């Protein structure tokens, strides 16, 4: 399983990297940590003529926390997130979700930008970006554009990125005080891609009702998605066991997974409901008497 023949270049500026990608018209591919790309190359499922190593480009490994939100540079690794104690407060949902990404060695090299660009439907980072209404900064030959996360993924392993564009930053909107949240995913083993995962958060107004609920799912379609039908149900209500079960039922109907070798579609569909129940129960501190 040796890599196919390819050439390699390591530009020193972002502009240079983009110029090289543009000049090769789709035959070049950016590599940073390489944790998704290298296996594809090893299986010869991808065979670019040129790898453009963006791993050492300056100014892309920042974790900035401000009133604008949390900015993650494209070259931030999972380990960077794990080690940044500020994120436990500044964005606990991000910290919790990223704790599920892959294994120790992968976490040392895998990057935020690489995960977004690879767009695995079961990956945590794109799922959190969508759930949180993140803004993704994309730089190409014609300058910079800001892409809302929910418009970024187009389908299985496919995004709006042109061949000569790079993700440079993802901005998660500021995390409000006293926000209720939880994240749950179900994977076969520690570090595996999830068979299904659910992220949810909402704020509580002075009447104790839910405001601005966000519910996102991973692993149950060709891309991560928001469950707006569930969000609409929750908006303005106060959470109780009955509402949770209602939400779970809506969630099951809202997703459209397919069969694969790891699980039948019906299982994934049901897991979205089970996980949403558990997520909402945890977020709302509600004890559910689970049937079974």
């Amino acid at each position: 399983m040796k890599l196919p023949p390819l050439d390699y270049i390591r530009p020193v500026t972002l502009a240079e990297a983009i110029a090289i990608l543009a000049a090769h018209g789709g035959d070049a591919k950016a590599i940073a940590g390489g944790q998704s790309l290298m296996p594809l190359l090893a299986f010869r499922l991808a065979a670019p003529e040129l790898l453009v190593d963006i791993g050492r480009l300056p100014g892309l490994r920042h974790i900035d926390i401000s009133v604008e939100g949390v900015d993650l540079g494209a070259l931030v690794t999972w380990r960077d997130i794990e080690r940044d104690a500020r994120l436990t407060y500044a964005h606990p949902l991000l910290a919790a979700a990223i704790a599920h990404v892959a294994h120790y060695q992968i976490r040392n090299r895998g990057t935020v930008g690489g995960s977004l660009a690879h767009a695995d439907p079961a990956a945590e980072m794109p799922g959190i970006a969508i759930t949180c209404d993140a803004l993704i900064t994309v730089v190409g030959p014609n300058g910079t554009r800001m892409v809302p996360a929910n418009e970024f993924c187009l389908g299985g392993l496919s995004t709006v990125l042109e061949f000569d564009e790079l993700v440079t930053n993802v901005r998660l909107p500021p995390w409000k005080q006293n926000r209720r949240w939880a994240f749950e995913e179900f994977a076969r083993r520690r570090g595996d891609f999830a068979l299904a995962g659910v992220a949810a958060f909402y704020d509580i107004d002075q009447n104790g009702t839910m405001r601005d609920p966000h519910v996102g799912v991973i692993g149950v379609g060709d891309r991560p998605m928001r469950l707006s039908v569930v969000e609409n149900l929750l908006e303005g209500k106060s959470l109780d066991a009955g509402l949770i079960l209602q939400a779970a039922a809506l969630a099951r109907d809202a997703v459209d997974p397919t069969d694969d070798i790891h699980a039948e579609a019906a299982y994934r569909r049901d897991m979205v409901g089970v996980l949403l129940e558990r997520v909402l129960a945890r977020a709302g501190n509600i004890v559910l008497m689970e049937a079974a």
Partner: protein
Amino acid sequence: MNNVSQLLVGHPVERMEDARFLSGSGLFVDDLERDGMLHAAILRSSIAHADIVSIDTSAALRMPGVHAVITAADIGGEIPVIPLRLAPLPEFEPFRQPVIAADKVRYVGEPIAVVVADSRAIAEDALEAIDVQFEALSAVTGRGATEDALFACADDNVSLRYSAGFGDADAAFANADYVRTERFSVQRHTALPMETRGLLAEWDSSSARLIVTGATKVTFYNRRALAKMLDLGQDDIDLIEIDVGGGFGVRGEFYPEDFLIPFAARKLARPVKWIEDRREHLMAINHSRDVACELSIACRSDGTMLGLRGAVFSDMGAYIRTNGGVVPAKAAQFLPGPYRIPNVSVSVETFMTSKTPVGTYRGPGRFEANFFRERLIDMVALDLGIDVAEIRRKNLITEAELPYPIDGLVPYEGPTSYDTGNYVEVFERALLEIGWRDKCHLQGRLIDGVRHGIGLGCFVESGGAGPKENAALTLERDGSLTIAVGSSVLGQGLETVLGQIAADTLSIPFDRIRVLHGSTTLLDEGFGTYHSRAVVMGGSAVLDAAKKLREKILEQAANHLGRPNSELTIADQHVVAANGASVSLAALATEQVLSADGTFANTTRTYSYGTHAAHVTVDPRTGRVEILDYVAVEDVGRAINPAIVHGQAIGAIVQGLGGVFFDHLVYDEEAQLLNASLADYLVPTASDFPRLRAVTLELRPSLTNPLGAKGAGEGGIVAVAAATANAVAAALTPLGVEIHHLPLTPPRLWRLIKDARDRTPTAA
């Protein structure tokens, strides 16, 4: 004589092989480099069943750095076929595998061409340039006749059928109070050693000799097979065994590459190295298990077992390789297990499909048979209202009944008997260890969202297969000892164990002993490592040689010191006489060559036995199973190195749990292997099964060999599916779920729970 406290046998001696492995200085086949060495890669069929219309290698041959592309056309004459090493039944002969596909391919992964190039990367580049035209035929994925039969001689795709048994099962079933029949299956999976296979073949044109490094398991047999195929004398070939990264039954059998790589080396007169990559490993190395069984039991209403009928169906894949029908034969043979069942009738049907051929994997047939039987026993207990421990206690063979003949379950094998043991005592120990009395009230209980279950699985396990093993011991001139043995070392710590045996007999310090193993250069004949035989056979051969060498040393010392043998002892690397005179071993070895050959022949099998017990929880909403406690109790007769035996047991339990929950080679209806990567072929990781225990007992030594050992490599795996599946089934019994099929993945358990609930909407 030795001071007892210095004896090494029976103690958890640290392993002599560890220092090199821990420092990265082990020597595995891919670590070898030779001047002028070339690298091979193999073009494997991407299609399961097809006629080969044409193979165009011209573009590949034109690529810089490519030295040869070898296809069937280049072999010349008849394409050699892989021989049947075990139980060479004539029925299997038409189904043997040619070493390279000529005009037909029968599974995804079958070798079509070998590229030899300056580097493995270039060789892989060239694979993409070979153009093979296929005429597709319909693939066969299951039992039964098909549109395009796989072999002209078998239009129903069946390669073997037989029936066997003892007693009168028909009468037993006709007269029984209670009869139950169920169908079970174990999925296709494989051993997955961490080191893939690899070979380095070197041809010396001047002497017309071939050296193949990377061989293991049965090197002497494989040399005979290779010599025949290459039309060389056995003495013209050496198979060399170096460090091996795990075998578990699958590695070291004669595979197509064991011909193709030496052939390439001879053709090019250059050293050729081939290292299997993980993708080809999953489609090329023997698959295993993949056995279904229709099992019937006849009992009295008090649970006394009267008769057992089992029909075993085995998917052999596309060809019958070296192991022949061992997997289904052993699945049938071990159906009765450690129970007193007077009337047993078994049948075996092996059928061919368009999948990778099947061979043995740790506990072949036993893992399956124990799962089938122990599951059925729990169902019987439930039906009859008998406690699952009580029904086993009632039917286990007692010590007074041993030796207990179980003749006739394999038609081509001679009589055999369970040798020694106290099955009941070991069973009770397992109950004690798991806390059966305190925990059995938890069966099926829902606590904090998960259901508890405790399961039991009892087994007997054969080991120590004959016919023979050889060893040669040499006292070197520096007073150190060299042991050469025909047994193979595949990472299980055998060097240490054999060293312990020799050290005790010869009173030579452990760190002055070197163990050479496996290679055909060491001895005239060796028999290898399989069927938990290395310690029983190889260890006994070393013991025999050590005793002889001890006599020779004393004899020489008697001459030297002028004292009779009876007054001499070996101590501190010297022979010491009663009068205090002494001579060093080194001095004696300098005076005269001091070496001895040992051998051990034995056709009587050993039978270890034991009970596994598992306490699990099942999340009925996700199907996730957690092992809260697991204990395997086994009587191995004698443990030469308890730490090694314990390590074997724990490792085997986890491998077995992989077979229960993870390992699964998945094919689609076109017989395409869907998970030829470790991202999709799942095995246990460190966080999956942290709570396991193994209790190794030495209650009843084997009488078949002077060590009293029974073989300890496989008892840890053989009852894992039995105990674990029974625990999962017990947890889910209140939901109306029964377990018949592995693997127990969360989606599958979820489906069983859902289907049970849909059948009886009121069940909760």
